[in-house]
């Protein structure tokens, strides 16, 4: 059984993957946010594991990571919080997104065991090289039934996209254009569409979700024309900034995207 596969089997289009940073805005918002996002209609949930130096992230997720770390978030706390989540949110796939160094320090095998025990289905580590994944991580991931998710960008060569497609059985994370998370699309008209169509025409095994710069109903719907769905992160983090009731704000945000 894998909840990621099930989610894509159940719903072939317009899947919404919502990202938030664990421990933000407050340390114990993690589980209430998962429940709220799932209830509001998110099809997948991506939990950011905060890191001091998140190279692929823009200022919004960087700032949320800094707050989360100051709140005391770490992997041990996150796994404790996630205990029992599958009684409350049985079906929605949960992915853990973060950077390699904290995972390495935790121990890759420990990390995968704890992640699987906590009910996670997939792992996104943008700075894990493909060759290292194959050489050192693949067996561990498989043993714990965790699916890796790899990023594809407009510059990723076709043969490399094929290789990435072979290496996973979840979805492909299509980075919408050049830039870190939360940036606006600054590409010339038609460039982004041509890229999405080029990937679509490759007839890959895995479904695709488009992320980076997707932040509202219009950009979500646009992305869904070219892929099975899209990922929203920074816009939700922004919506949680300074609110008293983070789960309520998260529900309102998801409703605004899906309305």
């Amino acid at each position: 059984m894998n909840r990621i596969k099930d989610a894509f089997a159940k719903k072939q289009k317009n899947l919404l993957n919502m990202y938030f940073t664990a421990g933000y805005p407050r340390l114990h918002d993690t589980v209430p946010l998962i429940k709220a996002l799932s209830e509001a209609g998110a099809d997948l949930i991506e939990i950011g594991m905060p890191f001091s130096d998140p190279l692929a992230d823009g200022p919004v997720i960087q700032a949320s990571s800094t707050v989360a770390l100051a709140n005391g978030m770490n992997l041990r706390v996150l796994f404790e919080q996630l205990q029992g989540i599958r009684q409350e949110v049985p079906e929605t796939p949960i992915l853990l997104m973060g950077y390699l160094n904290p995972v390495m320090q935790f121990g890759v095998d420990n990390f995968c065991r704890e992640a699987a025990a906590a009910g996670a289905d997939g792992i996104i580590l943008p700075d894990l090289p493909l060759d290292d994944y194959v050489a050192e991580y693949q067996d561990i991931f498989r043993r714990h039934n965790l699916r890796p998710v790899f990023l594809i960008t407009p510059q990723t060569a076709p043969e490399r996209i094929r290789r990435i497609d072979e290496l996973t059985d979840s979805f492909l994370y299509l980075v919408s254009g050049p830039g870190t998370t939360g940036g606006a699309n600054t590409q010339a008209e038609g460039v982004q569409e041509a890229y999405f169509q080029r990937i679509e025409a490759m007839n890959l095994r895995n479904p695709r979700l488009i992320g980076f710069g997707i932040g509202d109903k219009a950009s979500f719907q646009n992305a869904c024309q070219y892929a099975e769905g899209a990922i929203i992160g920074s816009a939700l983090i922004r919506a949680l900034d300074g609110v008293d009731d983070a789960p309520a704000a998260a529900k309102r945000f998801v409703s605004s995207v899906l309305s």
Partner: protein
Amino acid sequence: MKPTYQQPTERGYYGQFGGAFIPEMLYPNVEELRQQYLSIMAEPEFQQEYQQLLRDYVGRPTPLFEAKRLSAKYNTRIYLKREDLCHTGAHKVNNTVGQILLAKRLGKTRIIAETGAGQHGVATATVCALMGMECIVYMGEVDMERQKPNVYRMRLLGAEVRAAMSGSRTLKDATNEAIRDWISNPVDTHYIIGSVVGPHPYPDLVARLQAVISEEMRKQLLEKTGSELPQYVVACVGGGSNAAGAFYHFLEEPSVQLVAVEAAGHGVHSGHSAATSVLGTPGIIHGSRTLLMQDEDGQITEPYSISAGLDYPGIGPLHAFLADSKRARFISIEDEDALKAVAECSRLEGIIPALETAHAIAALGQLGAGPDDVVVINLSGRGDKDLETYIKYADAIM
């Protein structure tokens, strides 16, 4: 090919250190560089242009100066490799001259760089002016304050200096911002990294471009001492580019003791230090597996040094390997002793060193060098940029 200290494996490993841990967004650029850097650098036209610029623009070879009064004080034979006499005032320009020629051959039109003390930023802005290329330098906000003259120098040279506002707002954060810029500009931009850090091939690329330092040292030592090989080569290490250059052609000469000097800040175990070889553990920083200062959760911690060029929480993977294999000896020097070394070098030799370099000079007393031993200190930079700090700490220095 068997990996050596000089030559990492094909995937960029020195022992267990190195590699390229980068997000997919950087992969095409880094891979292009990896596939091409050695062949481009081997081209006769590249070499001719590079050597000519080193001679006529940088002012190489730099002198190897016998420091007689320092020698008398420490009762050994001390030679100073005068990288402070390079154009722009430090060794950093050896690397930027090479990388700008590489960038041109890769068809890049826009250059980005990170800088700590500002020396690499100035060296990058300089070669960009020379080649008519757009130049953006990221610098921590704290460092912009500490090294104001260099900020103005970069601007005068036509570069745009962008403040890094995240984290401790120093070198680590400037490097993060430069990497993010590269992610956002994947086609036209080359990132000139200033030290032997970052994903493969940067550590090897920068080491090769700085290797001219030790290449010259060997020739000059033969002329002045009758032997190409000294007993000691001493250099300060932040990321480690001047040390990599000073060590390079001695790496496979076991009789030469290599001494890397780190910044201990207020004391190695004071919580305000940048002595990575002591405080660091293996992990990943800026795309490289190396020794770095981190907490038990793998969060990178903030280093401290009075010197803006040494407060980096990692060291290059080559240096991590030199420390791990004990090929090099690592010494750490506190702020106060570095400041005293500034005065010592100034008054005994008439040379005002950079704060970074002063750490290497301050290690002289700990070497255990005998009267007949030859000690080469890589005098990596001059102290003009640090005058404000020297004035502020005048009491400690004098």
